[in-house]
């Protein structure tokens, strides 16, 4: 698939084995055997971790909803594998694989879903809504999403704008779903980033549905990637269930961004095999569609076939990776289950930098200050003044 910006013109011939952003396949061709096995590891870890989350969900240990990326592991893993540690990625709900590649750990994810007190957001936010950004080298480089769709596109425009302004050799990658492309934030964000020539890659995961809504009701464009022309940026579509293809297309867009080429749009074609979340029975999906994708286009099955037939990987090597993954997920589950829920008073910390903690409202502690006649003369009624013990606890936990 040629890039749209080149108007379909064939890329100039290059010697084999040379990387070129405009030559499809030239990035994947340079992957080592070890790296290819690593891609398998991340995909397997994604799937196994989600299967564990399903089990915990059924035991009601997951507090909120559970979102699956079954059948989409290749698009998340392959695309994010194209980034360096110093780069920053912002995921969507179905990018668990990208989070793991970028360094989020299974135990963090499990604790998030289980709303544990030592989860990355200390029980404040759900599922994979957490991040770790800052200086290159000191952070893993992923920025937690919020629920309102599309909002991370403008935010990532700003993250990458800062890279450009400070002359840092870093790029950003932001995921949106097919549905999220209909938001104003998506449009404004990608246009802003394009005009500012931010080093940003925008990945549309086209999995056929937004909740129950098929893509045909989201846009009349034949392909989402055709929208790139409207922003004056290159766009490229790839098979989202082919992990090497998703890596290749993203790696080249990342290289373009690194060289000052600005924003690229990528559309990864995939399929959401589970409902929007675990509660959704998918009654709106045409009969046989899910089964067909599962049987014919499972990204892990496809990759295993390729590894074993084309790359001489032994089944025993893959089995060893599977066993390692299961062990890691088992260990992470034990740690997550053993960790405590947050203390109620932690809710009061961190709304502002200053003050670092709010006071509980007066009715929460014996009503101190809550206007009995005898207390009327004292100052500050209506606001509870924490006793020394409470105060130190709150500030300690904030530290």
């Amino acid at each position, binding site marked *: 698939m040629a890039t749209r910006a080149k108007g379909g013109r064939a890329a100039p011939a290059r010697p084999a084995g040379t990387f070129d952003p405009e030559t499809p396949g030239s990035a994947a061709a340079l992957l080592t055997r070890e790296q290819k096995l690593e891609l398998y590891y991340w995909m397997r870890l994604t799937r196994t971790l989600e299967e564990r989350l399903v089990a915990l969900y059924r035991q009601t240990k997951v*507090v*909120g909803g559970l979102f699956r990326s079954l059948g989409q592991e290749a698009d998340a893993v392959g695309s994010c594998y194209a980034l360096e540690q110093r780069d920053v990625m912002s995921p969507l709900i179905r990018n668990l694989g990208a989070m793991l590649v970028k360094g989020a750990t299974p135990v963090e994810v499990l604790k998030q879903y289980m*709303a*544990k*007190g030592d989860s990355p*957001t200390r*029980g*404040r*936010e*759900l599922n994979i*809504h957490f991040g770790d950004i800052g200086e290159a080298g000191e952070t893993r480089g992923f920025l937690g999403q*919020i*629920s*309102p*769709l*599309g909002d991370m596109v403008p935010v990532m425009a700003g993250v990458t704008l800062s890279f450009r302004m400070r002359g840092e050799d870093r790029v950003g990658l932001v995921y949106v779903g097919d*549905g*999220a492309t*209909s*938001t*104003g*934030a998506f449009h404004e964000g990608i246009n802003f980033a394009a005009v500012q020539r931010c080093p940003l890659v925008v990945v549309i995961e086209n999995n056929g549905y*937004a*909740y*129950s*809504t098929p893509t045909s*009701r*989201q*846009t009349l464009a034949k392909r989402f990637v055709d929208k790139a022309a409207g922003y004056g940026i290159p766009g490229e579509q790839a098979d989202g269930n082919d992990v090497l293809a998703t890596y290749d297309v993203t790696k080249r867009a990342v290289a373009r961004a690194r060289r000052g080429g600005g924003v690229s749009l990528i559309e990864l074609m995939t399929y959401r095999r589970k409902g929007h979340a675990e509660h959704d029975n998918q*009654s*709106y999906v045409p009969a046989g569609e899910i089964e067909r994708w599962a049987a014919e286009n499972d990204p892990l099955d496809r990759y295993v076939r390729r590894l074993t037939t084309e790359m001489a990987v032994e089944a025993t090597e893959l089995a060893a990776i599977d066993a390692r993954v299961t062990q890691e997920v088992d260990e992470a589950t034990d740690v997550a289950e053993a960790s405590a*829920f*947050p*203390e*109620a*008073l*932690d*809710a*009061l910390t961190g*709304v502002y930098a200053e003050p670092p903690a*709010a006071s*509980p*409202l007066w*009715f*929460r502690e014996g*009503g101190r200050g*809550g*206007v*009995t*006649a005898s207390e009327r003369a004292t100052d500050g009624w*209506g606001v509870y003044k924490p006793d020394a013990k409470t105060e130190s606890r709150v500030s300690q936990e904030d530290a």
Partner: protein
Amino acid sequence: MAEVTYLEAIREALFEEMERDANVFCLGEDIGAYGGAFKVTEGLLAKYGEQRVIDTPISETAIVGAAAGAAHMGMRPVVEMQFIDFIANAYDMLTNYVATARYRAFLPCPMVVRGPSGGYVRGGPFHSQNPEAGFVHTPGLKVVYPSTAEDAKGLLKAAIRDEDCVLFFEHKYLYRRIKGTMPAGDHVVPIGKARVAREGSDLSIITYAATVWKALEAAEQLEKEDGLSVEVLDLRTLAPLDDDAIVATVKKTNRVLIVHEDTRTGGIAGEITARINEMAFEWLDAPVLRVTAHDIPLPYAPALEDFVLPQTADVVLAARRLADY
């Protein structure tokens, strides 16, 4: 008459109004084939077809803006926000365009924006919000937030028939927990009228939405344990506020506690307190007190959410303070 849930009551209102007036139509995300994230609109598509039950792209600004345009032309759109939290994405359209249309351009905007609201459901910061106060603050919008199945139905019917834009907040905690018996016939509850949910003489709790049920629970407990007679006023409509009902309950009990699930600063309790000061200060035997959520984004973990949101025990404690004053 059969009992129906709060959610079914809303659905009944939609069916009846679509049947009554061919100009009424529904639009929103996943409301057609799927029947909406909470299944409120289930069955509407089968009965009224794609012309009148429209599955939209994920574009809240466009959904609300399109509703406004259609409303100008004589249609009666009913918009669903998949979660009311996403009404923020249509804030510009609602406050700048819709709210000012009649005043600045003499354009009618008879439309409803409805959606699941509120917490106590472990939904985290973006599926639990109560954004009503910002809209109450916007002249040109009406705001309704029922607590019972009967009111949910009757007020939605009134909202659809209203000549102006009505924001209709539905509490998702109540959807399947609360049941009511619908009066026969065309059950319409007027917008702008509060309801005495429980008669009392010692103190009044003014509240709305899910905390009506916390107030009623507290009132029971206070009667049993303290012999207090607590009146509970369910506002039902937040804009326009029912000043008469507020003043009447102040005059009756002389002590007022305002309870809401929304955060404290800038919440509606402040407005009600100011009105009581202006209209009925002489009738007060104690300062007006508030029990509200803390001024904190709503967290996900149960212990945190329970801490941030007002609970029945808080209402009991505050009512005792007020009674002792």
